[in-house]
């Protein structure tokens, strides 16, 4: 049983016992409600953590957002920012939380031709594999990022309200 399924079972169990769930159930990637490209509710039911979001942003094994986007203030800490996507300087000032959540989850709702992968999407792929193993995967897949990782990276992006001088 995968970790996320364990959590789901645990949560379901709590409901079955009639207790109050301490943690809300994450929205399944196939059931995310997009209003145009906006997603207004937390995908995990929890608030995001910007510090963890920084890790999601910079870590190659998580979001690896830095592969394509640059943030001037981050250049001191981490070298080699990508240029495929737009700079995210000031991104938290020009977008609202619901925009950022929707764009990270599936940017193609706003930009149909974008190269940006959908980070919270489970099905509708061509020749999907199990991560980088080249072995075929059955849909629905685990999304690239978990619901909480999406919330965390959105929280981090919302801290980027300054444009560099």
């Amino acid at each position, binding site marked *: 049983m995968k970790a996320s399924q364990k959590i789901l079972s645990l949560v379901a169990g709590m409901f079955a016992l009639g207790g109050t769930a301490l943690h809300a159930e994450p929205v399944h990637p196939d059931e995310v409600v997009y209003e145009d490209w906006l997603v207004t509710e937390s995908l995990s039911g929890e608030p995001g953590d910007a510090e963890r979001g920084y890790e999601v942003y910079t870590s190659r094994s998580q979001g690896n957002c830095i592969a394509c986007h640059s943030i001037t203030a981050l250049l001191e800490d981490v070298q080699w*920012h*990508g*240029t495929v996507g737009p700079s995210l300087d000031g991104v938290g000032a020009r977008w609202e939380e619901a925009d950022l959540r929707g764009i990270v989850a599936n940017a193609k709702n706003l930009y149909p031709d974008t*190269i940006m*992968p959908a980070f919270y999407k489970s099905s509708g*792929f061509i020749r999907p594999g199990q991560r980088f193993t*080249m072995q075929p995967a059955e849909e629905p897949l685990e999304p690239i990022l978990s619901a909480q990782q999406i919330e965390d990276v959105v929280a981090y992006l919302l801290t980027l309200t300054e444009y560099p001088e």
Partner: protein
Amino acid sequence: MRGFAKGAGIVLAGVMALGLGAPLAAQPIEDTLIVNEELEMTTRIPAPEYMAEIFDEVISGWHFRTGETRDMQRDDFDNPGMLFAEQGRDAWNTVEGDAGHSCASCHEGPESLAGYWTQNPRIGGDSNGELWAAEQYINNCRETRMEAEPWGWDSNQMKNMTALIASQSRGMPMNITTDGEYAEHWELGKEIYYTRYGQMQLACANCHEENNGQMIRADHLSQGHINGFPTYRLRTAGLVSRHNRFRGCIRDTRGVPYGIGSPEFVALELYLASRGNGLSVEGPAVRN
């Protein structure tokens, strides 16, 4: 008006970023490739007619690499790929199989295949109307003429041999046929080129057509031509075949690649090679 306002914000941010020292796309480097101080390579040309809407100019991946990497390709003593081509020359002259032949028994020196690589893959006499890559012609010779065991597509022996054969055409322009009996293969290759594979939904075109010149982390995206294959790759310190590179790219989309040697990859090879028509054959090139 929400979308409009947001869009304007992005444009504004982009304009601001330009003046603020943020990382910028690195352009292909201005340079000239002359190998062994005598063989001048064509590494930039106006795009062929069927590419005119895509690129103004077709540019070899050599221009997207660092000075150190570019320098390695200027001299055969500095190009590790040529060591493997020399091993291919040894194999060329080695008798193998029940028929008692080597490559040299029929072809004499490898220079007899000068020009072959400019039209690889191709439909030829041995292929019975199929589109075959060089690896298939080599194995056909081994099995039917030499009566020897075929080599694995991605084996070192095969890569050494393709490096030797490619090197005989260095400096000659890629000259892939795209019409007539090639048209259906070319169309299949094109379809694959524009298909978004895997969980990351990435097509060849997303990186190498729309974003060449941009950086993915420290990696400078090229136009993705294959005139330099088999390529000596610094990352793996060995030769890499065209199909191995295709497989790696689709793997990196979190997708399931077609098989090495599959008709789909041979078709993709034809289509990709044609996108670089007019560029010099560089194989074995040096890349990172």
